[in-house]
């Protein structure tokens, strides 16, 4: 199964470079935004790498080969889900390389390093996204799922913006500050653990659905 994860990375060698370039770009492009750059960079990179890994398989119809190898469909599905964590790691490393480089060569821009909050929010966002679209890809294949994935990806950008604008609306701001008040009464670690637990539950639930789908998939 680990071979499958390594395979996905090997196939995407070039995309990793692209991801790194993208992180550099975001460091500069998101100068005016506070506190979102690490999350945005990692989430997009993970989204990109996972989509890309499915795209490569689709392009070469390599699922036919993979499913002819001595490996169970369960392992194939599980590998894709586990690779999410690998990609989060890679995305954070890529982002760190970008920020450190900017810092070391003393480019006069503001840089933000990812902290625990960033990592867990990234995990939550990525888990939520993948939990929804992975079963769809396993069901109808990458190409047909593509449009749906694009729409969902955009929603992930607009929904937080919508929430932010609610915050500015006096009608809701009281309620929202109540919620933020409750949240801030917990320690960072408690919140991180809660978000991580929610993420894992989402992924596990989604994995079970994907497995049911993929076991009956025909090629």
């Amino acid at each position: 199964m680990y071979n499958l994860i390594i395979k996905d990375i090997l196939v995407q060698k070039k995309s990793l470079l692209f991801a790194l370039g993208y992180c550099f770009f975001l460091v500069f492009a998101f100068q005016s935004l506070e506190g979102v750059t690490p999350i945005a960079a990692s989430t997009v990179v993970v989204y990109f790498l996972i989509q890309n890994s499915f795209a490569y398989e689709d392009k070469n119809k390599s699922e036919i080969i993979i499913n002819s190898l001595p490996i169970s469909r369960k392992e194939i599905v599980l590998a894709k889900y586990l690779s999410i964590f690998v990609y989060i790691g890679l995305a954070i490393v890529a982002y760190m390389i970008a920020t450190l480089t900017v810092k070391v060569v003393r480019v006069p821009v503001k840089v933000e390093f990812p902290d625990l909050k960033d990592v867990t929010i990234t995990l939550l966002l990525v888990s939520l996204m993948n939990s929804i679209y992975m079963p769809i890809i396993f069901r109808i294949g990458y190409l047909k799922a593509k449009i749906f994935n694009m729409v969902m990806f955009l929603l992930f950008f607009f929904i937080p913006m919508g929430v932010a604008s609610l915050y500015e609306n006096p009608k809701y701001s009281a309620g929202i500050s109540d919620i933020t008040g409750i949240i801030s009464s917990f320690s960072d670690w408690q919140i991180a653990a809660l978000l991580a637990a929610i993420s894992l539950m989402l992924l596990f639930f989604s994995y079970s659905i994907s497995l049911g789908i993929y076991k009956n998939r025909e090629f």
Partner: protein
Amino acid sequence: MENILEVTRLKKSFKDFTLKDISFALPRGYIMGFIGPNGAGKSTTIKLIMNLLKKDGGQIKVFDKDHIKYEKEIKNRIGFVYDENHFYEELTTREMKSVIAPFYESWDDKTFDRYMKHFKLSTNKKIKELSKGMKMKYSLAMALSHNPELLIMDEPTSGLDPIVRSELLDILGDLIQDENKSVFFSTHITSDLDKVADFVTFIHDGSIILSATKDDILDNYGIVKGGMDLLNDQTQKVFIGIRKNNYGFEGLVDDRKKARNLFRDNIVIDKPSLEDIMVYTVRGDQHV
């Protein structure tokens, strides 16, 4: 004789095609050619054996074991080659090898290197840079490097030039010198079978028309030629397929002796080629 591959009453329905209760068996140590026209059900059968498609009924046994219950174990001992190359085009032949190799318990790099050398394939070329013939040879090297006991190939010779094709067939012949191994391959090019097949299974429109040793088939089937006056509703029944023109008829029978008894010395019986058998069977009754 132990069967390495045994298909019994295999069923699969699609919207526009049905595989109807097909059965055949391949003993260990032999090559079986699986022939039939395009769309006859060859790829469907192979995909069912590999569990890429889910069967609706029947049984498939490989190495005397159920192909789904023991899927992983079986696939460890099978080599596969498909008509199209489904490897990652961007990778080099060596990179792709390192992707596939770890999946097999008994992968042998020495065997792989030997085949690559034998086929004159470069290890640092990207797969997309290989010609069709080279891709086929590469697929074969990949399929054989874990020392499989059963090699399953779907249309491996289609689209290849005659030289590569004959090279490929030679390798199959070499492979079964080791009497432990078998090859099951589909093709619509009947001359491939004339050269290497021990057994021939002929599928048409989702049904098995015949499955027997090539020698039996060629000994029993016959092309019968004679004058039109010999044909009536009764005698016409012995023919699987028949072609008529103003001067006479030419037809395929599956029992030469019967035809001889029926028509006595009024006919000429020729040995058919596998192509004759395929064409007459598929086209049936035809008038020129």
